[in-house]
């Protein structure tokens, strides 16, 4: 009940910010429509809806880091969190309260993106549903990154780091917009060491029903999600102690 009350507040704070709605839902949808229009005029395999939609879903999830980190950093910057620290809500309650409410938002965002992809020509199969489910470890990764950044940066720093840097890293190093093999070399090696391209490849494999193809990508994603969650919990507890 205590965690639920805090989670509900966090959900409302995120969903009632019009900028969050624009970047979380509007922007990915605009990209999806725009790229599909380009694909119709200049056909490129990269932007076929079956390849594009999973990429946009993952790219959209990267904004959840920004939303989550901004909320936490703002709470830390004001006396609001201090007030809550004097209540019986435990450290675990705070962490769950920040992590859990964003996950349903991530699922909703994925559903909306796939729904738009269907309107734009994506064939309706059961694999769309499983693709939505497979976004969960990716969502956990991005939301935990939000907890981590929100615990160590100010809200202004979060804007630059999560709003600009992370979304660009996700865009450039994920193979959504171009084939990483075309660049090759160190760029491709670095991209393959990061989770973004694996998240996109995992989603693409699930959407085409190639469940064997999710490996090894899912291991990268889950490994990163577990590691980042662990570090984020440590960082949050540390700042809580400092407060």
């Amino acid at each position, binding site marked *: 009940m*205590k965690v639920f009350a805090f989670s509900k507040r966090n959900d*409302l704070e995120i969903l*009632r910010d019009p900028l969050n709605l624009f970047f979380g839902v509007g922007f990915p949808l605009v990209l999806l429509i725009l790229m599909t229009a380009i694909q119709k005029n200049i056909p490129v395999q990269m932007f076929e809806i079956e390849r594009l939609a999973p990429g946009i879903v993952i790219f959209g999830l990267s904004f959840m880091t920004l939303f989550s980190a901004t909320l936490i950093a703002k709470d830390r910057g*004001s006396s*609001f969190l201090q*007030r809550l*620290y004097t*209540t*019986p809500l435990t450290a675990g309650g705070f962490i769950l309260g920040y992590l859990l409410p964003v996950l349903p938002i991530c699922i909703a965002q994925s559903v909306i993106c796939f729904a738009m992809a269907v309107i734009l020509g994506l064939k309706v199969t059961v694999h769309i549903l499983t693709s939505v489910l497979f976004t969960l470890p990716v969502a956990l990764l991005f939301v935990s990154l939000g907890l981590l950044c929100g615990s160590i940066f100010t809200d202004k720093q979060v804007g630059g780091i999560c709003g600009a840097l992370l979304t660009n890293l996700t865009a450039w190093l994920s193979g959504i917009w171009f084939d990483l093999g075309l660049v090759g070399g160190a760029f491709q090696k670095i991209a393959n060491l990061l989770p973004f391209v694996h998240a996109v490849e995992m989603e693409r494999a699930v959407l085409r029903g190639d469940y064997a193809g999710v490996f090894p990508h899912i291991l990268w994603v889950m490994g990163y999600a577990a590691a980042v969650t662990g570090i984020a919990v440590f960082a949050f507890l540390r700042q809580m102690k400092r407060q």
Partner: protein
Amino acid sequence: MDAIKTVDLTKKYKDLTAVDGLNLTVRQGELMSLLGVNGAGKTTTIKMLTGLTKPTSGEAYLLGKNIMTESEAVKSAIAVSPQETAVAPNLTVKENLELMAGVHGFSKDEIKVKISELCKRFDLKNIENKRAGKLSGGWQRRLSIAMALISDPRILFLDEPTLGLDVLARSELWDMIRALKGKMTVILTTHYMEEAEALSDRVAIMKSGRLLLTGTPAEIKAHAGTDKFDEAFVRIVKEAVV
């Protein structure tokens, strides 16, 4: 049993001693103001008493419970209205109150009753569906205190409750704070001397982390040999060697 009792309570940050061997007793139902210039140690004292920061040494008991070893019991008995207006801006007045009741673990029925009672008491009924971030400073402060009271605390900490408010809003808040007297123990920090004089049963004056003097406003004035409270405060702080 005293509401608050500190024994040689000390907080050190590297080279700085923020609170130095504080021995303070606050009786139940009393409204005590902590006074001092910036850096006197008021906020650090409140942070220690509310469990936000750990003392370097010494002990403190709230309603007989040790703040270090019985922090859960202490947290259930206290509430804080911080210096800044600590409200969730995108939540309505009612939702802010629901949040505070929720994190204290009240049932849905209890929450309903408490919100209705507080909205009536603090005149919040007409704005209960308005977002907190859209309220004026005075109304936000009013909501902030209502949020602190939703758990029926036995000890309430009010940190600079009227800072930055206009005369009318301040006067209204004073009335609300006066209405709390006797019902719970209130610890108030303020820079406004007239506020401390008007509201306090007793006053504690701090300087450089040390407690200089405690007493009723009349005793403080008598001690300093003046009939003006702000003058008494300045004299006591200026003359103190710590």
